């Protein structure tokens, strides 16, 4: 780890991305309170290290399949904060012209295949994307992000089996935040060691501290290296969401003490403190990164505020090609 963090440039880039997500998400929560954003909104606050470390391990030709808690992944992948914020505002300037909203961000330019709000629903699709890469002789890797709740779904087991059977280039990135909505892992799984599930498919598996972005990044890079030209790999990132499952969730199922304990391990101050201790980051530099993140978010809010509405006449566009119903 220490040799990795010595690469101050990488570490600072990862810190910057985590701050971008954190400020973006905090602003989303405020905007939700102001009714600017509606529907379901699932915040990623606390889990930033996973998306940042893992997405940054991918190349431009790789593909991503994500969940409904995916703003951070999209942001790090290169979907603009403007396009994401405008999407949450339901504006035509959004990445999906207001069709998807918070849970369904898509971006063809960065091979970002959603934004899937069916738990486990993205996993078979990731297997197929990997199959397409293989059949067309491309060296791409498909990263499938999913929560630990998804391991209870048949889609998880079927997809793990198919990917392992056909040795397809899928990186199964499990974001274990220990709660499937309000149901703790131990209350829903007979086997809570998620890596043991991967072993059942003969798939290499690693458990990683998902609050440590350097550890996440290193593990993800290793996983992607193994997957590229090899077979699928499973990585469990142990992480925690500070906020409730969604804006509708009263969060009655977790101890305050547990939340506070995880917050002490927070990915942003965890990394910034270490960098400061190593003399690779000053408080002034940290504040500058933070201010830059806030500026990006405020610009995105202004962009979304100034956005326009998709004309109602275009309601039935993009149901099937070239046809209106």
């Amino acid at each position: 780890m220490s040799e990795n963090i010595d690469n101050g440039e990488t570490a600072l880039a990862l810190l910057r991305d985590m701050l971008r997500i954190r400020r973006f998400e905090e602003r989303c929560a405020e905007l939700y309170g102001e009714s600017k954003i509606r529907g379901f909104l699932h915040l990623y606050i606390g889990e930033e290290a996973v998306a940042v470390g893992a997405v940054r391990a991918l190349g431009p030709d790789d593909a991503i399949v994500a969940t409904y808690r995916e703003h951070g992944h999209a942001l790090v992948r290169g979907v603009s904060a403007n396009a994401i914020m405008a999407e949450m505002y339901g504006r035509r300037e959004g990445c999906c012209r207001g069709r998807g909203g918070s849970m369904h961000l898509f971006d063809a330019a960065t091979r970002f295949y959603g934004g899937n709000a069916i738990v486990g629903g993205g996993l078979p699709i990731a297997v197929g994307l990997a199959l397409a890469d293989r059949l067309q002789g491309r060296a791409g890797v498909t990263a499938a992000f999913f929560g630990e709740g998804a391991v209870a779904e048949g889609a998880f087991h079927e997809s793990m089996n198919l990917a392992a059977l056909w040795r397809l280039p899928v990186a199964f990135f499990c974001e274990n935040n220990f709660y499937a909505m309000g149901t703790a892992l131990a209350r829903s799984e007979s086997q809570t060691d998620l890596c043991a599930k991967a072993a059942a498919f003969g798939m290499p598996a690693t458990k990683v501290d998902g609050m440590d972005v350097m550890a996440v990044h290193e593990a993800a890079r290793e996983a992607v290296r193994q997957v590229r030209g090899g077979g699928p790999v499973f990585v469990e990132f142990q992480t925690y969401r500070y906020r409730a499952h969604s804006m509708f969730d009263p969060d009655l199922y977790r101890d305050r003490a547990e939340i506070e304990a995880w917050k002490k391990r927070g990915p942003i101050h965890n990394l910034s403190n270490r960098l400061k201790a190593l003399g690779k980051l000053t408080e002034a530099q940290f504040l500058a990164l933070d201010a830059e993140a806030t500026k990006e978010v405020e610009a995105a809010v202004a962009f979304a505020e100034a956005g326009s509405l998709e004309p109602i006449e275009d309601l039935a566009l993009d149901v099937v090609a070239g046809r209106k119903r």
Partner: protein
Amino acid sequence: MRISYREAMRMALHDALASDPRVFLMGEDVGKYGGSYAVSKGFLDEFGPERIRDTPLSELAFVGAGIGAALGGMRPIVEVMTVNFSLLALDAIVNSAALYRHMSAGQFHVPLVIRMATGAGRQLAAQHSHSLENWYAHVPGLTVVAPATIDDARGMLAAALAEPDPVIVFEHVMLYNVEGELGDAWREADLRSARVMKSGRDVTLIAWGGTVGKAIEAAEALAADGIDAEVVDLRVLRPLDDATYVASVRRTHRAVVVDEGWRSGSLAAEVMARIMEQAFYDLDAPVARVCSEEVPIPYAKHLEDAALPQPAKIVAAVRRMLGGAAGASR
């Protein structure tokens, strides 16, 4: 050339695999076994295991993988053994395949063809015999077709593969062994239009898939009584080609819809509603329908027969509509 429906479908698949390297076939027992209805027999040897992919019994994963492969630039053909089993993949079809173009505002689309066997008649009992075409025909984003003829079995697959969006092809199990003449019409097979199979003056029988043959049989029986029935094969269940069947009903002023699905919430109900909306004042009688009885399809032959639409039931429905005098008034 006289061939079977199975052979026509097989030729279509063969053409697709031979002409487009993006096409591959995936499903349970499509390879070594040769296809559960023997449609892909010999393909594994000819095209190899990368393109003729036997899958585990994981409908959700392999249909979903078909979606992903389509997103990734391939033209997958996924075979699901029966429509009953497709319910295990319903999430992938309804929540992903049908929605990606819309949710992504046209950035992504899913050019996937899903073939599945449907229907009853082989005494396969309740978990292998249902007709759930209407479930899929309900969903925006899907195109749903039911080739009923040799020409359509031969021609519709290529048209389906040319679609940029998901297409579900329903192959009725009782059709595979049916033989007929393959002409040239298959080359023009589209995924938009219904077809008048037999023209007539007195009543329009609207059918699709496995019921087209039964409607034609009924029309022949009615002809013996001097009733001239027109038969329309819907061919495409979504989007429905209203123009063709409504025009037919405007000519005949009567319609009977024949649907192997259950009556409640059926596709027949949808067709009847559209006739009512578009041709109410052209009707001489309420539109009637002949559907499956509302029971799970039973095993025993006599019970299975009784549960399904049959030519005799269609004939009876037409006679009821025309009044006891069996068309004498015309």
